[in-house]
């Protein structure tokens, strides 16, 4: 299977307020099969600026996949999700809620807000790699299909 979307890398936006999580995802992404470029935002405000290409993000690419934490200061993941899914341009971007919470309520609420999937951050680093690999491979196959459809 081709591990790139057409000629380019898969663009991933990871939104998380914990620098440890951002770095961990960057490290884990080095180990997955999909060739991806990771962009990070440390809260919802930054994520929306990135997606709407405001300020320093004027040249930001449109992400192929958004990994979204729920609990963040200023603007939390639920607010980001709601805003993305109400935006006719952004709503097609798959959003995977990636969170430390194992609460059923949180899961139900994010699906109500049209999250594309909900994943609990594994405590085990190897499992984290496995998880990221499955997420990126799955969405690559979906996006790759769409890509061919467009061309």
């Amino acid at each position, binding site marked *: 299977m081709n591990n790139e979307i057409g000629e380019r890398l898969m663009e991933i936006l990871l939104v998380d307020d914990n620098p440890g999580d951002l770095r961990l995802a960057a490290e884990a992404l080095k180990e997955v099969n999909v060739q991806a470029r990771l962009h990070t935002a440390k809260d919802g405000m930054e994520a929306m600026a990135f997606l709407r290409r405001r300020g320093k993000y004027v040249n930001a690419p449109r992400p192929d996949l958004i990994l979204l934490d729920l609990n963040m200061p200023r603007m939390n993941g639920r607010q980001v999700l709601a805003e993305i899914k109400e935006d006719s341009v952004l709503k097609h971007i798959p959003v995977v809620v990636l969170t*430390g919470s194992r609460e059923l309520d949180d899961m139900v609420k994010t699906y109500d807000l049209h999250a594309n999937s909900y994943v609990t*951050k594994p405590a085990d680093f190897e499992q984290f790699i496995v998880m990221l690999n499955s997420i990126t491979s799955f969405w690559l196959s979906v996006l790759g299909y769409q890509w061919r459809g467009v061309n």
Partner: protein
Amino acid sequence: MAGEIKQSRELFRILFHSSPIGAYIIQNGQFRLVNHQLAHISGYEESELTGKPSLSFVLTEDRDSVRENAIRMLKGECSVGYEFRIVTKRAKIKWVMETVAPVYYRRKRATLGSLIDVTERKQVEERLKQITAEMQRSNTELEQFAYVISHDLQEPLRMVSSYTQLLAKRYRNKLDSDADEFITYAVDGARRMQTLLHDLLDYSRVGTRGKPFSLVNCEHVVQQAVANLKIAIEENTASVSYDVLPTVMGDEGQLVQLFQNLVGNALKFRREEPPSVHISAQRRNNVVTFSVKDNGIGIDPRQSQSIFEIFRRLHTREEYPGTGMGLAICKKIVERHGGNISVQSRPGEGSTFHFSVDMGGGEAE
């Protein structure tokens, strides 16, 4: 005849005045006759009471209900005494219980009343209510505390365990052998803490995240528990059997967890021979007692209480893995269902766990 009337009047007078119950006759809303005991309870002299409106020493807020209750009792609509508060001469508030009856006094309609001081009982009741409420509050707080602790500690712990694992992955065999050993212990410690927190969270969830009770078919519950343990049952070539089981009021998810923990333990603490588990139930009045009998290694009877405590383990981690939370969770689930759990066992001869479920639905809801 006249002598007899005189005698009976005398008898009434003695009884009335020596009674340990406050007694009085009311006419037109006023005390016509009061006894020593009423004077004692109210703190007024008998002479101070006579001629006064009988409601005047009832606490203002309680006057309407006293009036209503007295009318109902005089009409014969109720026969149980009613309670209200009075204000004594020294402005102290006392709780009393009163009964009234319609009588004739000096040829006119009157009310014969009697009352006793129930202040002490009321105070005890009130204190008991307070203590119960306080205990419930502190219990809920404790559960909430355990929940928040175990939930919020997971985030930072995930950092510790992920990064120690990343260290191990990148640097094992690249530093010296001491470093490798240190990393191994750090990784193992973080992983164990993770499991502990996870189990503590499960434990606190029994109280904080339980579902409302509904009718639950226990055969379905056992089938579900067995299905969840399918792999372990196959790996141990175990057999699980059960009698006809009743339907009870309960939280289905928690009952599945309960049976699953007990059957799971029977598989885990097995002897050489293949594990065999049998589940039965006995109904007595409103209480169903379930028994889960196994042929495992058994439990020292001296430990039959402590095994239900949180994080209680009877073996080393090398012998049997686990955090020692399973039976504590069982106990908490059973208690939420208004029952008790206990074990009968002899080492080497298997164990039988008994737990009861109150059919009336244990939890006050």
